[in-house]
């Protein structure tokens, strides 16, 4: 089946190149005009009203319940329907949403929120402190069967509502960064089928869904933030699983916007005058993740040798025409306050050094290894293929093993039964913790079995610290450790290219994996 599909893509690509033979030089022209047009963007006047069709690569298959949904693809849609006490903005800060103001106690154990008056759910009822209490307790598993719906909320001890506009959240252990988790949706207490019909407080309300087809949301007229009302009246998220169908849909006009096209698709769309391509970061840590708990990668020297063997610029050139940002540790550039550009060049390609390190580690002739890659991510497969060639130069004979995403989740991620794998890891929250906590020795998410007592103790200090600059400093030390130990072969934060039909504007890149449809508008003709 997969083969068939790949074959069709190949055949289409061949037929396209045959038919559109002469457009190679036109391509450079469009890149230039794109630069021009982005500077002209300010001219376009936003108008109210209109609708848009946004292509999404997969249906919302986990759950429409914001506390149960986990897939990034689901969260990016639900972002428009739900809001938390606070919500992220495009610079990576938290702004008050359902809450009007917040304060954190000195010891980092009590979070107090003042509710914003007049915030309404989509069914017209007003948000009360009880709804907030219910939402937080639901995430924490209090009053339920004890299993928290959102893992991070296991730290919540109790929620109290001293008066009709105040909510206090008490934590079991001090955590000065807990605010990052409070972007979690506030849901109405009186709705018990949120996985079928979402009701939130966001700028858009849920209208309907048709499995495998679409999800329709429309503007919520009573949104509390009257200055940031949505421009568009209706947004349809259309499920388009086939990468070919995405290109034809964009060309034919049945899709107006598609976030994150790959470089092949971008090349096919570059000469289309009706479409505009915006470039940003994908906010994923793409790396060759190494199982630090298994031979030969339990040896730091071997891991470092791999780092020296790899030429990351070449990877970018081969798989994405050089687009993307090279990274040197588990942090992407959009997290400006934590990002350390100085780590990028820690391991420049040095074949000689790599060979020496391998010899020191007892593998003078290299070894055989397996790179496990989920078969639904072409960009990771492409990267792995380039890596295989590069590793040959130091005598390492790597073999790619493609598996289904689902098997990856259970075997590689769950059972940690793998040697190395190429995937991208994203941040679920706007905090350094979202990316760095996973590498502490006893974390459930530490699938690479990285273990460094120094790293663990640094993280303990972060949790205790109440000073943000101190935390940032500690996180930076953790990043440095990951790079020093060569925990993984860090490659890049991939370039995200968003296609938007001309006549629409307002696309905003966030440091999180979301699509803010409230900012998209139709331009005046």
């Amino acid at each position, binding site marked *: 089946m997969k083969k068939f599909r790949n074959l069709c893509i190949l*055949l289409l690509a061949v037929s396209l190149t045959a038919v559109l033979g002469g457009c190679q030089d036109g391509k450079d022209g469009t890149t230039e005009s794109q630069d021009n047009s982005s500077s002209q963007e300010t001219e376009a006047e936003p108008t109210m009203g209109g609708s848009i069709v946004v292509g999404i690569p997969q249906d919302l298959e*986990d759950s429409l319940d914001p506390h149960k949904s986990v897939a990034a693809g689901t969260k990016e849609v639900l972002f428009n329907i739900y809001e938390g006490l606070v919500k992220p903005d495009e610079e990576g800060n938290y702004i008050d949403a359902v809450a009007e103001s917040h304060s954190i106690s000195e010891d980092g154990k009590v979070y107090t929120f003042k509710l914003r008056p007049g915030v309404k759910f989509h069914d017209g009822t007003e948000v009360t402190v009880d709804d907030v209490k219910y939402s937080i307790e639901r995430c924490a598993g209090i009053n339920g069967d004890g299993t928290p719906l959102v893992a991070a909320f296991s730290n919540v001890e109790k929620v109290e509502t001293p008066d009709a506009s105040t909510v206090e959240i008490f934590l079991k252990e001090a955590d000065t960064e807990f605010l990052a988790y409070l972007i979690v949706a506030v849901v109405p207490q009186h709705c018990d089928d949120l996985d079928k019909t979402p009701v939130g407080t966001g700028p858009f309300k849920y209208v309907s869904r048709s499995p495998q087809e679409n999800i329709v949301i429309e503007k919520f007229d009573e949104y509390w933030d009257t200055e940031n009302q949505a421009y568009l009246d209706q947004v349809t998220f259309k499920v388009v699983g086939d990468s070919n*169908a995405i290109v*034809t849909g964009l060309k034919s006009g049945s899709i107006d916007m598609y976030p994150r096209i790959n470089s092949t698709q971008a090349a096919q769309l570059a000469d289309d005058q009706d479409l505009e391509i915006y470039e940003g970061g994908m906010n994923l840590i793409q790396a060759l993740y190494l199982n630090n708990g298994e031979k030969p990668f339990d040896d730091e020297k071997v891991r470092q040798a791999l780092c020296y063997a790899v030429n990351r610029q070449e990877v970018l050139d081969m798989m994405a025409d050089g687009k993307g940002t090279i990274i040197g540790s588990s942090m992407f550039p959009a997290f400006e306050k934590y990002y350390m550009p100085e780590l990028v060049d820690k391991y420049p390609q040095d074949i000689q050094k790599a060979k020496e390190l391998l010899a020191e580690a007892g593998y003078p002739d290299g070894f055989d290894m397996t790179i496990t890659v989920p078969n639904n991510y072409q960009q990771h497969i492409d990267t792995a293929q380039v890596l295989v060639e590069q590793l040959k130069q130091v005598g390492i004979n790597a073999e790619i093993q493609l598996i289904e995403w689902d098997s990856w989740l259970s075997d590689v991620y769950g059972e940690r039964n793998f040697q190395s794998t190429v995937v991208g890891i994203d941040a679920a929250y706007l905090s350094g913790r979202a990316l760095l906590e996973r590498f502490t020795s006893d974390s459930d998410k530490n699938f690479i079995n990285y273990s460094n007592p120094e790293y663990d103790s640094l993280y303990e200090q972060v949790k205790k610290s109440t000073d943000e600059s101190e935390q940032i400093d500690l996180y930076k030390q953790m990043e440095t450790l990951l790079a020093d130990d060569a925990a993984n072969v860090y490659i890049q934060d991939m370039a995200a290219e968003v296609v938007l039909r001309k006549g629409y504007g307002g696309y905003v890149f966030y440091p999180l994996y979301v699509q803010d449809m409230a900012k998209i508008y139709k331009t005046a003709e």
Partner: protein
Amino acid sequence: MKYIVKKAGTLIITLLIVSFLSFFAFSIIPGDAARSRLGTEATQEQVEALQKEMGLDKPVLVQYGNWLKNFITGDMGESYSYSMPVSDLLKDKIPITVALTLLSFFLILLISIPLGIFTAQHEGKWLDRALMVLNQVVMSVPGFFLGILITFVFGLVLKWFTPGAYVSISESFSGFLSYLIPPSVAIALPRCAMGVKMLRSSVISQMEKDYVRTALARGNSGHQVMYGHVLKNALLPVLTFWGMTIADIVANSIIIEQVFTIPGMGSLLITSISNRDYPVVLGIIMLIAALVIVINFIVDILYGKIDPRIRVEQ
């Protein structure tokens, strides 16, 4: 009557075997529905809790028993991915795939019967030869490739239809049907070619029979012989082929639905397999298996209608 009971027995046994095999295939392939739904942020504790909720912590045989018990009472379970009953999910998808299948089948009949007879009547003439060459070419092109070709030529270059702009039945029935035409052509063409070839050779072999000569000698016109005698006999082997074709179309629509982004049963089956959403997968498999058996049954009855000698009651 006895025959119907016997057929119903076959149906039940086949469905049992198919469901059993699919269920076990599902338990063998790697991947876990609970983990698949919870993703990378989940703790072990959460995964186990959900497994328990889904009943995945029990032995496979017990799971199968539970599923079977519910299935017999008409409850196909709830989809993991969509939090809605499988029957509701399928209710929306079946009409789409059925419409696509019927449309393709109708096209096959419409094209292959006249062409088959025509080429047989003109056997050896240049038009027949030209048609047979064309036939051979069309027959060897796989449906999904035709689909891509049709999308490109008629959708993007000639702009006769908008690729990807699927219209649901509730929006506009005519829009829905017209969107289904290109994909059904893609499905139908290779099978049309096969149908033409079969009917042609079947008609030709009948034409050589003695009864044809006798009928002609008695003064019947060529037309009378063709439509009164030959066609009836020639259709018998072709009928089996058409019966198989319907099952074949359903299987093929899985690929074509992907190419034309039609949200039918095929697309649902594929995503449900990768999501390990086994209630949905089993539901669809049961449906397809039942369909194949029922079609075979209908073909058997039609046989008897056309040729009383093989009437099934005996």
